[in-house]
């Protein structure tokens, strides 16, 4: 038994000789790429729909499956961005700027090819970051008690202001709603039932996995049902060879490399994730690229800049989740759901006691990043056909999968009803621009924060002082305050200038 974190990189490569795991990786990448192409199905929605699959699988293939979907969907998002100017996932939004103009110029193959290459390289680099930073960070986190865990979750939650979109007040009301939803059920510390109204339906509260599936997947299905008659146009087009030419690679190399670093760094910060990463890097690339001034008119470097950065964020985003058990984004929250189903609690112990699992997952993650590039180079012209599936069929089947899947969680329909209700709620909220992200983040983080604070206070005998003056706790709390108010300052400043000047 290995008692301290050791690099078992060797174990990682076992996967390359295991046909079953290779098969799982290929399947997951194919599912991920095809789902990612479809506007409305991003990585979190796809993983959420398929969460129940984890039930029937062992931890190693199950998580490799989800990592593969994650990586594949992240790339798949660029396909729709390039072909129809609608990003399949928000992370690919910056890809439309140059990708769609290229496609209009009849260069869709070139754009898709370089997007695949940049995504793959960015993704691979992010796994390397995860492998290098994860273990030492986990070792450091071994000293985290309830107070530190609560503090870092508060830091995660303070990012609601960043994911709230344009209205912080809407984000806050959503956060409070999420905290309220999370407190429904039996309180483990006191044994009191909260808001259960004496019904078995609510005795165990709303399972956060059910809430995730509802808020992410069902709400998206309903939005799509509303617009189902609007056929997605443009997919009929032919895509020629997606194999990138040497000169294209040479031209894009610089922005791909800078995207790796920028994307990984931003991805590691909880809550920001790949959308922010690709936008920020697109801005940086405008300055450093050979043809930066022409960005927006169909420059191949623009596509590479966005795609390299958004996939480079995938591995980094896993660091706070795997080392601390704290998800900083929608996708990592869904990944936490998968770990929950598998009965694996992420945290430093994962690195010290179950590192064999971990290295296999990382191996799978690497493999997935290689496979989706291969899939893109060889099969993309065929794959684009997937998108001609009538949406009536696609979204009806997804609806059935969410219900049957949630039923399978506990073999009862209780959570399915709750899941579907959350979906309808999410649909209504989205219609009126209430962000759903803060609700999800609060549902996942609130119990960690509440129980952590209560345990810490119980240990300290009720005294607040010794808890908040622990060095790590104090630093994290200060950071949380700064993070929370930083966009708020901007909003105030923006509001002032708006009052001063005229509005467009």
């Amino acid at each position, binding site marked *: 038994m290995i008692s301290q974190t050791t690099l078992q990189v060797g174990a990682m490569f076992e996967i390359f000789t295991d046909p079953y795991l290779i098969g799982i990786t290929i399947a997951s990448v194919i599912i991920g790429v095809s789902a990612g192409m479809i506007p409305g199905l991003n990585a979190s929605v796809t993983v959420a729909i398929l969460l129940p699959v984890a039930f029937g699988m062992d931890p190693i293939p199950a998580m490799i499956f989800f990592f593969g979907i994650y990586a594949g969907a992240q790339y798949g998002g660029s396909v729709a961005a390039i072909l129809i100017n609608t990003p399949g996932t928000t992370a690919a939004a910056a890809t439309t700027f140059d990708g769609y103009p290229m496609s209009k110029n009849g260069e869709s193959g070139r754009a898709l090819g370089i997007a695949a290459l940049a995504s793959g390289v960015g993704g691979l680099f992010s796994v390397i970051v995860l492998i290098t930073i994860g273990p030492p960070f986990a070792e450091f986190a071994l000293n985290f008690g309830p107070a530190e865990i609560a503090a870092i979750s508060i830091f995660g939650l303070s990012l609601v202001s960043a994911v709230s979109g344009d209205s912080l007040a809407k984000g806050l009301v959503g956060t409070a709603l999420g905290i309220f939803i999370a407190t429904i059920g039996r309180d*483990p510390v006191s044994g009191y039932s909260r808001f259960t109204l004496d019904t078995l339906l609510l005795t*165990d509260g709303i399972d956060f996995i059910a809430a995730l599936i509802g808020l992410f997947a069902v709400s998206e299905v309903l939005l799509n049902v509303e617009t189902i008659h609007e056929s997605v146009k443009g997919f009929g087009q032919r895509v020629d060879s997606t194999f990138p030419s040497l000169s294209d690679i040479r031209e894009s190399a610089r922005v791909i490399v800078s995207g790796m670093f920028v994307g990984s760094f931003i991805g590691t910060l909880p809550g920001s994730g790949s959308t922010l990463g690709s936008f920020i890097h697109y801005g940086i690339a405008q300055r450093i690229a050979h043809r930066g001034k022409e960005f927006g008119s169909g420059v191949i470097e623009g596509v590479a800049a966005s795609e390299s950065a958004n996939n480079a964020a995938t591995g980094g985003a896993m660091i706070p989740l795997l080392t601390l058990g704290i998800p900083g984004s929608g996708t990592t929250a869904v990944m936490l759901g998968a770990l929950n*189903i598998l009965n694996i609690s992420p945290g430093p*112990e994962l690195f010290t006691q179950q590192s064999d699992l971990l290295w296999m997952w990382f191996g799978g993650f690497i493999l997935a990043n290689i496979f989706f590039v291969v899939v893109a180079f060889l099969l993309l012209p065929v794959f684009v056909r997937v998108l001609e599936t009538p949406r009536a069929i696609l979204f009806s089947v997804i609806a059935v999968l969410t219900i049957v899947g949630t039923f399978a969680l506990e*073999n*009862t329909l*209780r959570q399915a009803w709750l899941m579907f209700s959350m979906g309808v709620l999410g649909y209504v909220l989205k219609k009126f621009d209430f962000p759903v992200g803060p609700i999800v983040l609060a549902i996942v983080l609130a119990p960690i924060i509440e129980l952590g604070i209560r345990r810490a206070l*119980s*240990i300290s005998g009720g005294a607040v002082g010794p808890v908040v003056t622990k060095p790590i706790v104090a630093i994290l709390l200060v950071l949380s305050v700064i993070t929370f108010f930083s966009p708020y300052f901007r909003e105030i400043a923006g509001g002032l200038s708006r009052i001063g000047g005229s509005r467009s």
Partner: protein
Amino acid sequence: MTIVAWASRGGGSDTIVRQGYVRSIRENDLLPVDVRAINQTGGGGEAGMRYTLDQDPNGYTILNVTTNLVVTPLSRDIGISYEDFTPIARMGVEPILLVTRGDDDRFNNIQEFRDYAAENRVSIASFDVGTQDHTAAFLLSQRTDMNAEIVPFSGGGEQVSALLAGDVDAAVTAPSEVSDMRESGEVQYMLHFSGQELELYPDVPYVSQAFDTEIVVEQFRGTVVHGDTPDEQVEYLRDLYEEIYNSTEFEEYADNNNVNPAFLRGEEFYDYVEGVNQRFTEVFQENNLGVYSDS
């Protein structure tokens, strides 16, 4: 035939059903019909109990139970008690342990721990309020005049992290959570709550050996059926579970999961359950818990 587990996949009650029972029945052809395991999760076993009572009492649906068979009806008024079921057998028990850090110099045995706790404030990590771990810790600190704060954690892993990180001084938990760390010397076993010497840990004292009081709390694992099941079927199932108990598959399961095999057939199982019920009722009454709370 259907065996109901009231934990979700991978939980303790699910593991014994799938690895201990279903595997043993299938490998040894113990039944003329096929057997399947289903999960009915929710409400601390309430969903499983309710499901079983909703089926025909023909012996084709059997329920795997734990100490929650007693604790859940005491925690909330669910209109079901253990007396609504007929006992088949108790298959095993999991002891509960009090552990401390291996390198903690303040105490090397349970007496030193108690003397230290009488003078100083200590904190003990345990499981959620109302569970057997919490009850054991609670009773111990009360009866031996410890100045202890019992801190409930929601999982064994969290308890152990808090202990190793130095946030709490001790933990009351199941052996499966700490057996690896005992081997590496990170934790030491101080006391167990099974009320008699345990084969696995002969050098670890139980409560009445160390103190002038008796506290017996442990997690039991057993099987019951609907209370209206005809005697003929009940006897058939009791024989079946005796065969399962003696199978190598069950032995393997017990070894892998830190469960002490401890067979009690039929009525003997319920005599034992009555004792457990009595002890928990006392605790709940004394502390205004669950159905005895004022509100």
